[in-house]
């Protein structure tokens, strides 16, 4: 591993994004349980470090393709809260006019090109975005995020092989939360470390603690710098843990409850928060102000979303095809 370390400002910025992600996840679950929002929801609680430490190394011009458990990836890279909440409420003011929903969030202004509901499918498309960057030589990087289970689907193999052969500026970011839907990692994946699979593609593979903002930052920065320098793709395996079941509302009885309890007790969010204060990087008051600020922004976004109109029936057949230029 390298010696990259986030400076104080970046450390606070990583926390800021984690705070946004955590607050939004908690709000979404509350809105669902109180019946104010009706949607399939895939909680990412526990995984906030990964996109926060990744995205501080990216700009709005860089591309991201994520998956159905990907609202954290979208928010960390800049999806505005109002666009998110109106979309997941299925309203016209949503990012996708309410036609995509939580599994298909898109916001090109921030490089958020695809959210797919199909396991593994973020990767082949990210390659195409990276190919475009390579052709234009514009220094942009494409990131494909996916879960551990997606490393077992054919798209993973095809994508990593092609990216390596073409030396594409792409980062394959595997968020290994140890669960593929209801099936444990060890029961579905043949290797101890997904990062080891990189070797088979002649690619750099990094295995990091995805709940450690410093390790995750260092890996992300190295991968981004490699991509921008034309050194090709990187596979990052970031180990984390999913605090909830596969889809919100499932009873998660298949998860070992003791392991889960221990993981939640070791929640990376309060740990990092305490560390920033202990290290003198930020004060309790500063971090509390960040958190309170997001609560207020989310209040406003929810209000905005729920007062936005539902799409009219004519939208059913709009955007199926475009018009010839």
């Amino acid at each position, binding site marked *: 591993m390298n010696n990259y370390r986030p400076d104080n400002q970046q450390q606070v910025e990583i926390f800021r994004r984690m705070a946004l992600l955590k607050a939004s996840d908690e709000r979404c679950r509350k809105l669902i349980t109180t019946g104010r929002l009706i949607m399939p929801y895939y909680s990412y609680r526990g995984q906030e470090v990964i996109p926060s430490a990744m995205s501080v190394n990216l700009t709005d011009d860089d591309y991201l393709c994520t998956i159905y458990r990907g609202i954290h990836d979208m928010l960390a890279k800049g999806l505005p809260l109002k666009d998110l909440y109106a979309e997941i409420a299925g309203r016209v003011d949503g990012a996708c006019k309410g036609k995509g929903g939580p599994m298909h969030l898109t916001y090109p202004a921030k490089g958020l*090109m695809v959210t797919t509901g199909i396991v593994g499918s973020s990767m082949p498309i990210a390659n195409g975005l990276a190919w475009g960057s390579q052709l234009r030589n514009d220094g942009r990087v*494409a990131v494909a995020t996916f879960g551990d289970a997606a490393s077992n689907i054919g*798209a993973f193999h095809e994508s990593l092989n092609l990216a390596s052969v073409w030396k594409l500026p792409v980062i394959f970011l595997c968020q290994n939360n140890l669960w593929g839907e209801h099936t444990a990692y060890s029961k579905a994946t043949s290797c101890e470390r997904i990062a080891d699979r990189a070797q088979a593609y002649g690619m750099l593979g990094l295995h990091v603690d995805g709940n450690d903002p410093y390790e995750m930052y260092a890996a992300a920065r190295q991968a981004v710098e490699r991509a921008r320098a034309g050194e090709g793709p990187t596979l990052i395996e970031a180990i984390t843990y999913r605090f909830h079941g596969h889809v919100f509302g499932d009873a998660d009885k298949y998860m070992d409850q003791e392991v889960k309890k221990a993981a939640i007790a070791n929640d990376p969010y309060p740990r990092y928060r305490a560390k920033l204060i202990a290290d003198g990087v930020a004060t309790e008051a500063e971090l509390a102000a960040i958190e309170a600020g997001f609560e207020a922004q989310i209040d406003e976004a929810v209000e905005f979303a729920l007062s936005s109109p539902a799409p009219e029936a004519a939208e059913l057949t709009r955007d199926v095809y475009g018009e010839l230029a």
Partner: protein
Amino acid sequence: MSEVTSQTAPAQPMPKVTILQALNQAMADAMQEDPNVLVLGEDVADPEEGGVVGATKGLSTRFGEHRVRSTPISEQAIVGAAIGASLIGFKPVAEIMLMNFTTVAMDMIVNHAAKLRFMSGGQTNVPIVIRTMTGSGMGTGGQHADYLEAWFAHTAGMKVVAPANAADAYGLLRSAIDDPDPVLLIENMPSYWTASEAAPAGHRVRIGEARIAAAGADVTIVSYSRMANECLAAVQPLLDVGISAEVIDLRSIQPWDQEAVCASVAKTGRLLVVHEAVTPFGVGAEIAAVISERLFGKLKAPVARLGAPFAPVPFAKSLETAFAPSADKIAAAAASLVKGTR
């Protein structure tokens, strides 16, 4: 309608070229005009001989291997790369060597290429072309020759075109590259080397516009791809028994030219739909349904369909020859529609 195209046709007869040459020319012209046009697929660059049939021969030498890229045998990766590049302004032409190989890229085509425009609320679009060849007649058996157009025509967001001659191959491929949405272009393998009049440079065939390939009064025969030519070959045998057949080459399957077909059937009162794909749940079923809905009172006979039997494409020459409709079978089917309903 066909008039628009015929008006743009030149007064001087054009030289004859094969469909393969026409496709190659269309890609070359598009790449010359627009630096965003890219070509990717298995073996497409010149070190790999410009594809297994040479459809892309010369393009990488002329435009560079950065724009004309041979890929691994990875159909998901090919279509995925095309989709990604198209999201940021490129116009990739992806070659999926054989139509049966689209099955291993179905997720990319159906779940992504076709739907990203809608699911993003119109924020993104996927202007890609997928060229793919197929067709029985070359002894390739059950996994290299299927016509699967109905699957794609059934997918909202996809367009599907299938030329029968060189000029339409050129014009449809140019229009497909211009198009802001994913277009599947079906090429018939056995007729790649058949020569016909070339299209003038820059020619476009509007997607959704059929061609009246032969005018007639007694029965309308609708088809596309190589079968359109088989239908044309049935015209004279039908005339010999006193039946005047109007042949419509759809050229475009999704969308298809309902107005052209309706106008013809309103005149003839009889419709036969011919395709090489198996008959059940095929394109013929959709056309039959629409024509029955729109022209029920004007039909002199039930709409008829002629396709392949509901079976995989066979290997043995005797079986393969019997598999796809032929001019003889088309003439017989058309004659039986007319017989007793005059």
